[in-house]
């Protein structure tokens, strides 16, 4: 099979899977739908693997064009794909994790009436996600960008009978759209300034920073904040947990939300040349990392904790991008994909076991009932906490080291954020799996380990989370930082421009040691608090301390947005509708007609039927006509 066809088939197979399942979903038995769904993604994974190996063996990036898509005036965009190390890596993550989650979904969704629909959406999502990373121009990336937003919408609102879920879905889509608008305008500005929207044409033309470039990069970044749930557009992600758990794992942890990271990394040269945007990325990343981490401390919904954790981790990735450590960002993205998918799937397994119970206050002591889930979850927690040698340790450490090089304050904030992460993840772990079981007798009776289709992906991901860090072991620990080398062609130009920092190995060791120590302290703290003292978060309605309450209510950000954006907009809409439209413009138009009627009535009275009066008027007319002679 030719490379061109293979590349073409990678996104096409999931699309075909979607079309097939969607069109005949009513008559399709579940097993067959699952087969189509998993099979298409798996085939894509194989193809991606082939491409990856080819690139690994030193092949040039593949750039294939299929057909001209939009062409108007001097604008043209074609349907063409670019497979370079970056997108190849993304392909592997998407199709690989995607496949695992497909498998997982078979077990998780088996009893749901919308099983087939679910698979069709998942396949569609994979298609768009692939398009996003494979597109060789901004517009195609935008297609994928919006497409995944749509799938996210569809999947969040998967259980559409629940209007709260639908609200969450709408919120996700609309907040994404805010980012999308910014992104598309950024793209258009790129077109205006560089005359093209192909990466291959644009990047060579970007040679120095300028105001326009800053505007473009900021606009693109706003797009990224929407998709990757950064401040200020992050609030949709926790709500997005309304969707089925595999969705949270795939879309809202592993793949879609990292699109922003991918996009910034893809445009690294643009960012490298506009320091202002870089600083913005860094600041937003730091703020989000810290902010979301604090919120996660007080959440009681197992998925919400993970969601805020995701936000926080994404913030960390942007920190990496913001300090110019693009490869580190991507590295962390990859490891994060492993362990966060693992954590979500684990949480899903818990939820599955407890019959859709998500509140950690009603859990506890589960490690006895569902051991496989517990162990895999434990791996995930250790990975995210950065315990060596789990994946998270390497990627996070690299980011922190780069941040330290850049700015010590940034490092400090990032460290605090990651220590908080350790704390709340362990809090989650301890409350859920340790201590006494707090659910009802009825539920306890039914708790059972999940089927193989759920546990196998968990195990695979656990292995990845445990070992995934070795693709980026830094040199000082005897590694070769393979991933950085692999990605270096993508960031080559940026590296040329950037001043290289050199940091002494000593400093690096010290930093690493400090972090590990503090991490262990955090673990100890959490253990004391939640295992030894067996503290359980207060139940709903009880008195909380002020600080706790603020965090518990997520700093009231949703309420804040509601009152400064949503409600005013509704008021304005009402104002337009009632005041300007109905009693303004339309009233004015109708007034013409009414006054016409009014005048007509007056004129009608003139015609009063008395012939004497008519003659009178006529004589007045005659007088006026004769008086006209005086004018002449």
């Amino acid at each position, binding site marked *: 099979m030719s490379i061109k066809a293979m590349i073409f088939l990678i996104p096409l197979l999931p699309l075909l899977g979607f079309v097939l399942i969607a069109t005949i979903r009513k008559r399709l038995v579940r097993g067959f739908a699952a087969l189509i769904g998993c099979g298409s993604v798996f085939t894509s994974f194989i193809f991606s693997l082939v491409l990856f190996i080819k690139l690994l063996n030193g092949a040039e990036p593949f750039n294939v064009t299929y057909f001209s898509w939009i062409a108007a005036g001097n604008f043209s965009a074609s349907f063409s794909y670019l497979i370079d190390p970056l997108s190849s890596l993304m392909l592997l993550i998407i199709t690989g994790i995607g496949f695992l989650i497909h498998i997982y979904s078979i077990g998780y969704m088996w009893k749901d009436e919308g099983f087939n629909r679910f698979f069709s959406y998942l396949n569609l999502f994979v298609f768009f996600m692939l398009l996003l990373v494979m597109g060789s121009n901004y517009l195609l990336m935008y297609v994928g960008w919006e497409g995944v937003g749509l799938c996210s919408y569809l999947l969040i609102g998967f259980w559409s009978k629940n209007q709260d879920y639908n609200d969450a879905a709408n919120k996700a889509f609309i907040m994404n759209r805010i980012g999308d608008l910014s992104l598309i305008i950024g793209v258009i500005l790129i077109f205006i300034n560089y005359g093209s929207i192909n990466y291959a044409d644009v990047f060579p033309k970007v040679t120095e920073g300028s105001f326009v470039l800053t505007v473009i990069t900021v606009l693109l970044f706003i797009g990224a904040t929407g998709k990757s749930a950064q401040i200020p557009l992050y609030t949709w992600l926790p709500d997005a947990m309304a969707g089925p758990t595999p969705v949270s794992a795939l879309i809202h942890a592993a793949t879609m939300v990292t699109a922003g990271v991918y996009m910034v990394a893809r445009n690294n040269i643009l960012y490298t040349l506009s320091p202002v945007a870089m600083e913005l990325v860094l600041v937003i990343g730091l703020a989000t990392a810290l902010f979301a981490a604090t919120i996660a401390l007080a959440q009681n919904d197992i998925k919400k904790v993970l969601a805020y954790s995701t936000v926080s981790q994404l913030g960390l990735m942007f920190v990496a991008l913001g300090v110019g450590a693009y490869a580190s960002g991507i590295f962390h993205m990859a490891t994060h994909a492993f362990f966060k998918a693992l954590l979500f799937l684990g949480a899903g397994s818990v939820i599955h076991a407890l019959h859709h119970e998500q509140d950690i206050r009603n859990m506890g002591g589960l490690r006895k009932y569902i051991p496989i889930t517990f162990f895999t979850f434990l791996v995930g927690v250790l990975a995210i906490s950065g315990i060596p040698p789990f994946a998270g340790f390497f990627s996070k450490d690299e980011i922190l080291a780069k941040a330290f090089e850049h700015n010590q304050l940034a490092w400090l904030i990032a460290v605090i954020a990651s220590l908080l992460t350790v704390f709340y993840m362990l809090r989650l772990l301890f409350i859920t799996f340790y201590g006494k079981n707090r659910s009802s007798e009825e539920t306890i009776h039914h708790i059972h380990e999940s089927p193989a289709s759920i546990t196998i992906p968990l195990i695979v991901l656990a292995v990845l989370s445990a070992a995934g860090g070795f693709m980026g072991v830094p040199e000082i620990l005897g590694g070769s930082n393979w991933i950085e080398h692999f990605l270096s062609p993508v960031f080559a130009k940026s590296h040329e421009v950037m001043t290289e920092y050199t940091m002494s190995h000593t400093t690096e060791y010290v930093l690493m040691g400090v972090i590990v120590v503090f991490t262990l302290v955090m673990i100890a703290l959490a253990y004391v608090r939640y295992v030894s003292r067996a503290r359980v978060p207060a139940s709903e309605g009880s008195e909380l301390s002020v600080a706790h309450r603020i965090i518990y209510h997520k700093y009231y950000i949703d309420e804040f947005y509601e009152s400064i954006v949503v409600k005013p907009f509704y008021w304005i809409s009402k104002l337009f509708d009632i005041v300007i439209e109905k009693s303004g413009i339309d009233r004015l138009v109708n007034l013409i007609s009414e006054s016409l009627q009014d005048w007509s009535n007056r004129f009608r009275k003139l015609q009063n039927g008395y012939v*004497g009066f008519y003659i*009178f008027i006529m*004589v*007045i007319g*005659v*007088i006026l006509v*004769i*008086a006209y*002679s*005086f004018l002449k």
Partner: protein
Amino acid sequence: MTAYLFYFLSFVAIFSALLVVFSKNPVYSILYLIITFFAIAGHYVLVNAQFLAAVHVIVYAGAIMVLFLYVIMLLNLNKEDEPHKSYLAKIAAVICAGIMMVVLVASLRGTMQTATKSGSEIGFVNNLGKVLFNEFLLPFEISSILLLAAMVGVVMVGKADHTTQPQDKK
């Protein structure tokens, strides 16, 4: 002499014309109208239109006025209690007609001071006849159509239908 006669006749004509308007009794009005007509006939004689004066007297005083009086008598209208317009309407009428007169006179003012001719013979019947039956033959014939139409019309309107009943559709 002619001048005095003119002023006298003018006075009679205007005065009786005013009385036509202001008399309460319709019969008086019509009678004053006859006087006016006679005064106008006098004017005709003054401007050498003797034949016309004769015709005038015959047609107006003789035929038309008789018709008026006949109708008044027929309808038994020789009363003074006919409905009158309100004072406001009357004042308005007087003012309006007055303004019209003023405007007309004003616009005709100072046109010609040429005196009227005298001793002209065009008013004689032979002159008129020549014109009437040569140049104006067609109008003359047409006036027969006119009279025919009027006649038919009068018969048609005047004839009392048995079905005639006041009715109001509204």
